[in-house]
């Protein structure tokens, strides 16, 4: 099927293309241009911002307090992404190798929480992660079982697991925020890996096993490299929203584990420092662009 040249039917083309382009220009490009101009501006009064082309707002990003936050956002999002990929790969493998009639149901099982409101899922975690919440109850039970086992085999005197169970502190700590981000973004990570596994020519795996490579070697040298595009896509579409997460650090971090988005929110809602908030938002946007460029570079290098 060949595409029509727009010059053959310029009116039909315009009728279809113009509404979209006008909409994007008005409600997407213009808003971004406004914050771009604000990011080079100064507050002249409470609500008036004059674009003076100052670079102050960008310089302020590099002051230590903000750099600490940026760095924290990067590593929290990074660790969450790695954990997501490590869980997502086996799940995607199970779905891709399940019986054909089961596949849609397994996919639905993955997608259902994803369709549930992000805020509600985070709120649900808030109930689980407290020091006296369900996660710690489950861990305490496991600790009890393990402790009894240790006592049974006669090592009780050594108190290998400590005298008492110490509850994990998750709320207000980076681990709680990472837990929350993994929880909300896991489905994002599964789908691209799944679709790359579906497209895979399985005879390569058979060949590898037939030629004597073990399961692990086959995974490491055949399966993983062949599905790397899916893994990279999964990593990027998990990492970008994770980096800009607002709700998770806000609710689970309890103000102790702020990330970039929390600082941006404060500039607009409380501190009323719109120029600095704009500069931070654009900084986040530039990081996103760099990541997308990395991905398309990766894709193009693989296809050659």
């Amino acid at each position, binding site marked *: 099927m060949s595409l029509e040249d727009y010059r053959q039917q310029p009116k039909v083309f315009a009728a279809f293309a113009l509404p979209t382009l006008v909409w994007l220009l008005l409600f997407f490009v213009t808003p971004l241009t406004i914050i771009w101009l604000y990011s080079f501006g100064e507050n002249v009064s409470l609500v008036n911002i004059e674009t003076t082309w100052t670079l102050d707002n960008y310089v302020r990003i590099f002051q230590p307090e903000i750099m600490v936050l940026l760095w924290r956002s990067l590593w929290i999002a990074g660790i969450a992404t790695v954990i997501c990929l490590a*869980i997502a790969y086996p799940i995607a493998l*199970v779905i891709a190798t399940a019986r054909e009639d089961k596949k849609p149901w397994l996919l639905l099982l993955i997608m259902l929480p994803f369709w549930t*409101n992000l805020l509600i899922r985070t*709120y649900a975690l808030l109930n689980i992660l407290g020091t006296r919440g369900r996660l710690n109850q489950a861990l305490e039970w496991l600790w009890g079982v393990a402790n009894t086992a240790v006592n049974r085999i006669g090592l009780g005197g050594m108190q290998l697991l400590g005298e008492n169970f110490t509850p994990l502190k998750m709320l207000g700590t980076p681990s709680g925020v990472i837990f929350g981000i993994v929880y909300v973004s896991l489905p994002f990570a599964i789908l691209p890996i799944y679709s790359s596994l579906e497209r895979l020519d399985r005879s390569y795996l058979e060949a590898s096993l037939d030629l004597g490579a073990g399961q692990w070697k086959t995974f490491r040298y055949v399966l993983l490299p062949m599905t790397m595009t899916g893994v990279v896509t999964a990593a990027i579409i998990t990492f970008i929203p994770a980096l800009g997460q607002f709700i998770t650090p806000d609710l689970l971090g309890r103000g102790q584990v702020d990330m970039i988005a929390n600082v941006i929110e404060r500039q607009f809602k409380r501190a009323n420092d719109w120029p600095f908030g704009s500069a931070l938002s654009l900084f986040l946007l530039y990081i996103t662009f760099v990541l997308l460029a990395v991905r398309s570079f990766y894709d193009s290098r693989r296809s050659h």
Partner: protein
Amino acid sequence: MNNIANQNPKKPFEYSRKWSMRLVFIVSMIFLYAPIIVLIVFSFNNSRRGGNVIWRGFTTDYYKKAFANEELMLAFANSITIAVSATIVSVFLGALTAIFLWRFRFPFKPLAEGLVSLPIVIPEICLGVSLAMFFSKMGLWTTGDTPWPLNLSNIILAHITFSFPFAAMVIRTRLQNFNREMEEAAKDLGASEYRVFRDILLPHMRPGLIAAALLSFTLSLDDFVITFFTSGPNTVTFPVKIYSMVRFSITPEINAASTLLIGLTLLLTYIALRYQRQMINKND
């Protein structure tokens, strides 16, 4: 060779049969579902405070309380109004976008495609902040005395901006398997451009349009971050209201309200799946 094959009785791609893989899968499912199930179960818990740890008996009081909470119900009405309006425009705009990208060759096409997909990929907070600044700069900031539902227009505009690219993506996927020979045959038989569109292309697009509508509706209903920045004190949506309730104090009423929203999402998913199944059966 055979020797090695015998050591590996399972076929190479039967990971779903390995117990270790199954265990990972089951544990992950517990991880995904347990918090939501606990939330739903404890919406029926008869306890005023800290009701999420100790079970104190069954009650539906918190649902009655949620329904009697006028602010919450107004937020719910706002959310539905916004979702319906945003869905209608998103599907329309998404269909136009999908058609022009699918059908035509034109200069700077990659640029146009990039621009359309950009609202999907940029961090939500950037879009929320920039739209909030846009509305205040353009004087489109709705004041307290704008009559309902006009005071929701900023939020509706914002929702259309982030959901129509998703709609376009879904509709375009459907258009990929349209047989253009049908269109040519109709034109050869004297059908006008408009009739071809109405009688051939539109019926083919229908499942895509419905899928796009359900997706846009869900996206709009679920959005928190962008709405949080573009809403005013009088234009609170359901998720924004739940957020302010969570910040204030944690009560079983929030669980009840959340359960209602989860129920609505499940219902929409069910409708989408049923519809999809009908389409598959028809095509057979």
